[in-house]
């Protein structure tokens, strides 16, 4: 039990930098596509690692199922909406940033 708790804490701590780098990337990156890149890493990997850590620490299978349902919904939402935003930006002929 204790090793599961520690492993869960390890995964939660591993997931936090993804959220922080998502925010920093959203603030620092130069154009839409690179910001989308930063955003999806925070959405998928960051939340995935936090949910995986919490699922390792939880004590009932129902809780694990609910946690993974949340992750699945966020995955669908973020991938679909990021795809839409990127496709629409391409249709609007927004030039991707390139190193000057």
């Amino acid at each position, binding site marked *: 039990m204790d090793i599961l708790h520690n492993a869960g804490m390890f995964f939660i701590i591993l997931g*936090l930098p993804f959220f922080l780098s998502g*925010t920093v990337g*959203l*603030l620092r990156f130069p154009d839409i596509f690179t910001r989308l890149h930063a*955003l999806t890493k925070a959405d998928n990997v960051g939340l995935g690692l936090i949910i995986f850590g919490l699922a390792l620490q939880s004590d009932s299978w129902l809780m694990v199922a609910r946690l993974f349902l949340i992750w699945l919904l966020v995955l669908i939402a973020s991938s679909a*909406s990021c795809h*839409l935003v990127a496709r*629409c930006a391409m249709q609007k002929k927004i030039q991707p940033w390139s190193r000057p």
Partner: protein
Amino acid sequence: MSRIYIFFALILLAAIAAGMVRILRGPTAADRMMVAQLFGTCGVAILLLLAKGLDNMVLLDIALVFSLLAALATMTFVRRTWQGNDGEGADGYPS
């Protein structure tokens, strides 16, 4: 031992507060909308960590609603507000 979860939630809230700058400064409308989506995901993570930290499992249901409705705002934005060229000025470009 539950205090560490509150600390993680505090870090994520600070990330939200920092990301607010992009809403105020973002040059295109899509940048602003992406920040709102990041807020949704950060809110889900904060709620999950608070549910563990405060030992209140009702918060998982709120996180479930958050993640259910997370896609709605961005999709409505892309399909209704941003797409289509007849609504010029709605895309927020500095013309």
